[in-house]
């Protein structure tokens, strides 16, 4: 059987302001992931970098160390490659006052 390979849409048309994150996603079966973020609308204000967070339990989160740009224009896409992330995975960002981005976040996971 071919190894599992999943595209999971973890945030769809969600507007991020302030401290925002995708819902906890379990991907312990996957050895690697690429996270894509697409801006569905024109972002507003200065955008911070997004960060990858991992967790033992889906409730207490650690900064995994990876950071990547958020897309700066409507339909622009950014991504981050990941490996060795344990089980729970999410993308988080802390946007300054006045900044907003509407995102489509997808995880592309491979066993």
């Amino acid at each position, binding site marked *: 059987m071919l190894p599992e390979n999943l595209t*999971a*849409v*973890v945030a*769809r*048309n969600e507007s991020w302001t302030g401290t925002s994150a995708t819902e906890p996603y*379990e991907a312990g*079966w996957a050895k690697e992931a690429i996270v894509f973020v697409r801006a569905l609308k024109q972002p507003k204000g200065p955008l911070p970098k997004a960060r990858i967070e991992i967790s*033992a339990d889906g409730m*207490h989160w650690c900064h995994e160390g990876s950071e990547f740009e958020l897309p700066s224009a409507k339909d622009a896409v950014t991504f981050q490659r990941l490996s060795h992330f344990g089980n729970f995975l999410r993308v988080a960002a802390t946007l300054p006052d006045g900044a907003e981005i509407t995102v489509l976040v997808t995880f592309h996971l491979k066993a």
Partner: protein
Amino acid sequence: MNASDSRLDDLRRAIRESDPQLSRFDPLPRIICLDDFDRGMCGWTQLVGNYEDTLDAMLPGYAQHSHAMLSTLPNWDFGSHGGVDGSYALKIATRPRKGAQNVAIKRLTFRKAGPIRLEAYFTFKPEATELALSETDIRSFGFLYDLQIGDTSGPGDRVMPHLRFLNAQDGQHIQKWQFKRRTTPIKPIGTAGKTITHYHLAPDDWEDLPGGEQRLCYNEIPTKVNWHYLRFDFDLAAMQATRFQVNDRVFAMDGYDCIRIPAMKNLWCMLNLAFFAETDTDKRAFAYLDSVCLSGDF
């Protein structure tokens, strides 16, 4: 049943009972799918709402849905729980907001309008954010079919049998099975005149299944789970439920009915099945499926 059919039935039963994976199900003669989530997602995906031109057109009930996941049921206090006979189960998780729902769906069509049987091993639990039993934090766990007659077999309807276990509401531990006959008003989407939407999982219009009270094993702390067996028999010819069983209880279905709405122009022979979870607190609700077997008599 004639002698030849009887021998075939005996042979089929002997083969199935010698296979541990099949032996815990009681399928009709033809297995349409046997989804064990140790083999991956098995065609279960998220229920995305309808839209045209913009995702903003999606009803909020659907916009909240997210992707199911392959889970080992990991817990902060004792680690991975695992499934009935393997490491993984399908996990349906809501957002941490009272009333939030999430759905996992599998989309098929049928080739004979006859009896079908849905069997599953399931469990549910809230996110263990408190050191408390939390038995009233999950509002409901449930499942549904979304069905429509074949294009030449009408007149007929789009039929949506729903059942949910109303575990709790506003902190009250209720524990009973309910069904639904009504959905929200049908609303056009966009301007092309091709797409409509309605939210059949709206919190209104649930009705009690007569005799549907059931106390399920929940266990004694917020992280331990026990797996439950579920079986739902439905006749696609009559578009009626015929039998419903959970663990040792078989429920009378005389008082049961489905959501029935006019057939739609692009859903012929549709056979969709879905499971859902709903939270009653600002805490994530988790529904888990170890395995699902759908079978038919054809």
